[in-house]
């Protein structure tokens, strides 16, 4: 279902944009022919295994690989000593130490060594024979523990940034951010109702089905080819090179198909280890993580603690908000506390607020991006309190949000003024949806919530070739996760005026196309799409020139219409793309063009969602019975894949709200590193997610595109919690809303009441 803000202006007569053809990579994927990270087999390839820390925090006092190396079939063993001293800026150095530990391990799962052998069995046997001695250190597992006076330190020299004057003593607080407007006291004095609560969330994993995998073939000339599943092979090249101490150009990274990433595959784990093992062994090496390694050693999203106080007047205007937020960074600085702070109040025009955020290291895996990184945690707190304020004031929750909603020209809480945005349209889409007024059954409750995400532009490159038969090849370097091959082909087909099936979109390796940033930040359809459109337009200009040459007329007299060159006065028979291609040798040679850009014109995304849940009063189990999401897509190039993004974000948010959490033992080791014990929602758990595409075109993109991949995960945490509050009469402030927690709240009340 698609809702356009103004049908007169948003139905410009596209032939391909907005249609739903089969994805170009669909055949290979449904027939099992597509090759994912672990599928590659090379002649002479060795299998690798990684030795990981069993401790949450320990000093490595010795590593002895003698016994392991003597096992027949073992071809290479590496430790931190096989890598150069970390160099570059602090973030780069942390990345190097996270890739393989040197003197200290900072979390269970931290890499200590790796082995390459003739079989996985032998590699695992060798791992068991590596003798590591540790001096086990005390650990801190939560922001409360890590921020407490006298807490054990992960990093002896970490001074909190963003505090003036700078602290003189190190701590586990990596940085502090502050966003502020107006006079807080005045804002709260203007309020008729104030709600004050503390919210917490646990670490949650992106939960991609395909574990990390990498194959490296390092050759004696000092170069290496890497095949890996990632969201950006250029980033894998750059990051791996930093860990190895190499120039990036010594590495060629070939993108495998990717079985889910959601932000978690925008960084390296196995790649530099595979390269070094292959270099030492002189043979190709494959490394594949098990699910337990994925949980223990790759970056989840931050656990969070958010204290919030918000006030509103009887007219329904939010007058003030005060937020204190602390996000777990894991072992190294770098949580998304900045984005969490900037997005927290972004949907609302609030005259007086302060947001103070802290990035806090703990003895857990270093967190990494997860769909709209940082935004879901703060939105859980804000949207829960917004819901409660609306109810206390007796105002419909959508009307309350409409009353305070930001619009174009208003100043965002993080500073700049909003450009063209469609928040209000998503609120109205939900309010006008039949779901909003549908009757509820026994033990059921309804919740709504909204969310914001910036979206991104960044760097992209594309090459467009016209083949000799007049078909077109579109080459980019953006791994296709959510259907971007189809989107690129649709935009190229629209530009050329040819059938979609005549466009072949490819994802090329790091040596075959110019640089592309990661497939992340909801940026590919916008940014890589803009590069494709620009390259297509260069080719079309060339085609017009060749037609002009053929007809011996000025190029100004040639138009490109419906896949062919036409003379403006019709005095020449049209020349099709195929006809021009056929004669290219006479008009200047093969036809192709490239475009590279640092994308501009990013359009921000908003989503509003409504959910009905049914809570079993005897077990505390929460069943989602109906869910509708409305999101501004700007323009849906391929509506089916846009709907897929909307639905996927919601489903992951439901998991975050109801089930998912890292459970740790007292010794700082993870108790549930499998999909049996870490419960993500599956199809049988959920109803159909009704996706409403709202189209408020982004004026910054040739087709009006806004990124759609991330903002959908921002509202569900609060939407579900608001629905559970409506169903049970209890306000839950700690996620996940697993049956034991909900049952306890039903039986004994929650602290929040």
């Amino acid at each position, binding site marked *: 279902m698609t809702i356009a803000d103004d049908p007169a202006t948003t139905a410009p007569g596209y032939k391909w944009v907005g249609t739903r053809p089969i994805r170009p990579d669909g055949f290979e994927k449904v027939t099992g022919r597509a090759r994912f990270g672990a599928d590659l087999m090379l002649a002479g390839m060795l299998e690798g295994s990684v030795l990981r820390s069993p401790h949450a925090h320990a000093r490595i006092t010795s590593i002895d690989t003698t016994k392991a190396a003597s096992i027949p079939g073992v071809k290479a063993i590496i430790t931190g000593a096989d890598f150069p001293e970390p160099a570059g800026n602090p973030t780069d150095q942390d990345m190097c130490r996270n890739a393989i530990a040197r003197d200290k391990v900072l979390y269970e799962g931290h890499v200590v060594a790796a082995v390459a052998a003739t079989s996985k069995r032998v590699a695992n046997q060798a791992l068991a024979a590596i003798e590591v001695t540790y001096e086990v250190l005390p650990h801190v597992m939560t922001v409360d523990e890590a921020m407490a006076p006298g807490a054990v330190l992960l990093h002896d020299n970490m001074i909190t940034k963003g505090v003036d004057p700078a602290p003189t003593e190190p701590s586990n607080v990596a940085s502090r951010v502050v*966003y502020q407007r107006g006079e807080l006291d005045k804002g709260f004095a203007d309020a008729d109702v104030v709600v004050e609560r503390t919210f917490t969330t646990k670490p949650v994993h992106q939960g991609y089905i395909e574990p990390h995998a990498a194959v490296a073939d390092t050759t004696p000339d000092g170069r290496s080819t890497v095949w890996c599943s990632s969201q950006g092979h250029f980033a894998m090249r750059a990051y791996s090179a930093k860990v190895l101490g190499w120039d990036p150009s010594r590495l060629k990274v070939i993108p495998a198909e990717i079985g889910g990433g959601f932000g978690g595959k925008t960084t390296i784990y196995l790649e530099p280890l595979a390269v070094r093992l292959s270099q030492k062994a002189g043979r190709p090496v494959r490394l594949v993580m098990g699910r337990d390694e994925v949980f223990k050693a790759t970056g989840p999203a931050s656990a969070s603690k958010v204290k919030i106080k918000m006030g509103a007047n009887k007219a329904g205007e939010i007058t003030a908000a005060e937020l204190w937020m602390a996000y777990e960074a894991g072992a190294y600085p770098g949580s998304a506390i*900045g984005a969490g702070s900037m997005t927290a109040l972004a949907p609302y025009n609030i005259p007086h607020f302060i947001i103070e955020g802290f990035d806090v290291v703990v003895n857990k895996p270093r967190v990494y*991006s997860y769909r*709209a990184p940082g935004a879901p945690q703060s939105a859980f707190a804000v949207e829960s309190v917004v819901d409660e304020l609306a109810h206390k004031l007796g105002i419909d929750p959508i009307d309350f949000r409409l009353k305070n909603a930001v619009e174009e020209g208003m100043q965002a809480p993080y500073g700049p*003024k909003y*450009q063209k945005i469609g928040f209000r349209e998503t609120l109205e889409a939900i309010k006008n949806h039949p779901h909003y007024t549908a009757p509820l059954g026994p033990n059921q409750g309804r919740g709504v919530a909204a969310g914001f995400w910036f979206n*991104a*532009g960044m760097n992209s490159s594309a090459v467009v070739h016209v083949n000799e038969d007049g078909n077109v090849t579109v080459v980019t370097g953006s791994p296709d996760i959510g259907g971007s091959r189809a989107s690129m082909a649709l935009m190229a087909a629209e530009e050329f005026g040819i059938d979609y099936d005549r466009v072949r979109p490819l994802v090329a390796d790091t040596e075959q196309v110019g640089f592309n940033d990661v497939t992340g*930040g909801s940026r590919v359809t916008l940014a890589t799409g803009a590069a494709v459109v620009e390259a297509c337009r260069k080719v079309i200009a060339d085609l017009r020139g060749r037609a002009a040459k053929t007809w011996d007329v000025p190029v100004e007299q040639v138009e490109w219409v419906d896949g062919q060159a036409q003379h403006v006065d019709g005095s020449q028979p049209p020349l099709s793309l195929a006809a021009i291609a056929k004669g290219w040798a006479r008009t200047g040679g093969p036809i192709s063009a490239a475009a590279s850009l640092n994308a501009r014109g990013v359009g921000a995304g908003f989503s509003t969602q409504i959910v009905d849940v049914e809570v079993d009063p005897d077990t505390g189990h929460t069943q989602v019975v109906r869910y509708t999401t409305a999101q501004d897509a700007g323009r849906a190039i391929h509506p089916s894949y846009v709907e897929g993004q909307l639905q996927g974000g919601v489903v992951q948010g439901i998991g975050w709200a109801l089930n998912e959490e890292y459970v740790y033992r007292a010794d700082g080791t993870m108790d549930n590193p499998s999909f049996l014990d870490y419960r993500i929602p599956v199809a049988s758990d959920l109803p159909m997610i009704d996706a409403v595409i709202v189209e408020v075109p982004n004026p910054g993109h040739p087709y009006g595109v806004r990124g759609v991949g*991330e903002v959908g995960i921002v509202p569900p945490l609060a939407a579900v919690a608001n629905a559970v509050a409506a169903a049970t009469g209890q306000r839950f402030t700690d996620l996940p809303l697993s049956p034991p927690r909900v049952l306890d709240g039903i039986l004994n009340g929650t602290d929040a009441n």
Partner: protein
Amino acid sequence: MVRVFFSAGLRSLTGGATDIEVEAGTVKRLLAELDARYPGMAERLSEGTAVAINGEIINDALYEPIPDGAEVHFLEALKGG
């Protein structure tokens, strides 16, 4: 002239000033001007910072032109997922 706004985290360098007007045709010139007025500002904004010009957030914006009358904000550079 362009109007530059300072987030709460930068105001310790500006003596509490929330915004100023300066002459600057590019982000690079703006940073030089700000560093001259508020020593340390250029270093503070050298890494991990994006620039918003008239509402458009731009990473790696050092040579970006700034139109006359524009509003400029400095933001933390963002990662997507």
